[in-house]
């Protein structure tokens, strides 16, 4: 177990370093610099600015300095938003994204699991078919389509929900629904197939034969076994909500980390690009590792490799 965790963490560290390196050299390949778009910067001022942030040094030296600083937890100052450190930008923007993403994951889990169970228990009946059709279609619809359809129906036509910003609980409904749509459909399908698998097992028949009530057999025997694949899906799901929020944040103009990331690339705000990339990558990779470990703890049948 310990060895397994160590191995996974080792790979995670290598991956994060690789991503940081790739990002660093890729973003320096992007033409233009952080100070070019500002109005009429004199060459002397430009040189002074570049010297201040160390951009005049050779690329390799910049890289070594940056990695060294980052290892000490210093991600530098934003080049565009004067006087703000990258850490403070992430600290102010990430909670917004995390709240929407977390609510979406919760909603997907709370809707998808029961739907999958209902569908599996009524196999072949009308309810099952309806749920399958809905779930299959749900997987095929990109998030921006859902966002815009929701916005058009409830925001523009009916006027029930506010379309922009994030001030009251009403503002959360549409972004969270849009973000939760795909994972809900996916979890429903996953839950249905694993539930069907479990319901056909011998121990379910034994439970029925010894007179366990349907309620108890469902919750004590079936659900606990059937939910395992859903647990493994939570890792990729997190990655999805992070990237999916790029679109949702753009459409609903929510001040989150996804918008910050895209914005920093168009502005060539090097330190913010590096900071957000490393932060998001670390978050996603560590969540994946965590989910794998939890999965193996929950299910003793799975051997650690």
């Amino acid at each position: 177990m310990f060895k397994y965790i160590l191995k996974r963490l080792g790979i995670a560290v290598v991956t994060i370093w690789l991503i940081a390196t790739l990002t660093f050299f890729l973003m320096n390949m992007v033409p233009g610099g952080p100070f070019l778009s500002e109005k009429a910067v004199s060459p002397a001022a430009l040189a002074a600015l570049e010297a201040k942030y160390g951009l005049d040094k050779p690329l390799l030296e910049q890289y070594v300095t940056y990695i060294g600083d980052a290892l000490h937890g210093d991600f530098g100052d934003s080049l565009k938003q004067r006087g703000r450190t990258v850490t403070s930008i992430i600290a102010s923007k990430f909670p917004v994204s995390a709240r929407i993403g977390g609510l979406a994951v919760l909603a997907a889990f709370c809707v998808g699991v029961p739907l999958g169970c209902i569908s599996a228990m009524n196999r072949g009946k009308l309810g099952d078919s309806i749920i399958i059709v809905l779930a299959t279609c749900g997987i095929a619809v990109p998030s921006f389509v859902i966002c815009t359809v929701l916005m058009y129906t409830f925001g523009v036509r009916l006027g029930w929900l506010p379309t922009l910003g994030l001030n009251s609980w009403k503002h959360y409904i549409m972004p969270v629904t849009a973000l939760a749509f795909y994972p809900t459909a996916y979890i429903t399908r996953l839950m249905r197939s694993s539930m069907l698998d479990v319901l056909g097992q011998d121990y379910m028949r034994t439970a029925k034969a010894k007179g366990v009530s349907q309620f108890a057999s469902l919750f004590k025997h079936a659900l606990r076994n059937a939910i395992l694949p859903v647990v493994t899906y939570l890792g990729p799901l997190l990655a999805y909500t992070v990237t999916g929020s790029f679109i949702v944040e753009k459409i609903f103009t929510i001040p989150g980390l996804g918008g910050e990331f895209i914005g920093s690339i168009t502005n060539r705000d090097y330190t913010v690009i590096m900071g957000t990339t490393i932060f998001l990558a670390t978050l996603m990779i560590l969540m994946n590792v965590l989910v794998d470990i939890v999965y193996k703890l929950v299910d003793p049948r799975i051997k650690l490799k």
Partner: protein
Amino acid sequence: MKENPNPLSFQARIDPDDFLPASNEEKQSLVIMRESVSFWKDGVRRFRKNKVAMVSLAVVILIMIFSFIVPFFYPYTYEQQIRGSEHLAPMEYSEQEQELRAAGEHVFPHILGTDKLGRDYAIRVMMGSRISLIVGLVAAVIILVIGSAFGSIAAFFGGWVDILMMRVVDIIYTIPDILLIVLLSFALKAPLEKLGMMPGFGWIQLLGRNLISIFIVFALLYWGGMARMVRSQILTLKESEYVTAARALGAGTARIIKKHLLTNCIGTLIVTTTLQIPSSIFTESFLSFLGLGVAVPMPSLGSLASDAINGINTYPHLLFIPAALISLIILSFNLLGDGLRDAFDPKMKN
């Protein structure tokens, strides 16, 4: 058989009855009742029975005709701006066109209306779905080639080669793709543009550098799943007798992998490739929506939807048509892939 009177006779002991014409009953036993079914025939038979898969195949073919063949016969082009017919509703004619019609001339109707620059929307949607399909198909082929080569080499050589190669896959698998795609498409812009200026590389301009950078991204990041799938298949296949036999006959490694191992996991290859198409289309539409997809004036379904968002109050059909079409394409490829999996690779079910 008639008893020969003299057992010591050297006469050939032939029974004339054996040379009688065969009776109908005897003939019947030699008739092949059912032809031996090959892998392909068996799969195709199972696939044909699957109604959902057949319908989705028909939809895919229909969309292909719609996006690759119909534009050749269509009277408008995707970049042609018609003055005076901006923002027409579906089947509406502009004033000039109405005058022309009144003069007895035939004007082809704008089936889906026009956009804000007076471009016929139907042809733009067709071109958009063409781009989406091209991205899906080309990306799937790239992933198929890289993934199967990588996976089969790792599995066939085993040992430390396998460990090393699979670590690489593990790392690529954990890289958050969208972050890198966004970065790469920005970073590849300038080098590709420069390359496009050079003689012999004019095709880069034609395709659009964003499209090429999308392909590069797919080639770099998305083959991990395919490599894993192929590796696990080949690990079991390489123990088969026919591999030993091939080696005994002097076949080289490359030949064994190509001729024997990869052809034997063709079912998995087909299914994984087909299921890769919708996810590539999904990613392309996501990128185009963020403005990182194909270059203007070339449309893609994602960029059409993205452009239409600002006018959602007044011209909602401009948004809903590409949105519905992209969902339909992804849905039918998903169902087609599921059907192919059930038909050609029953073990992979679930």
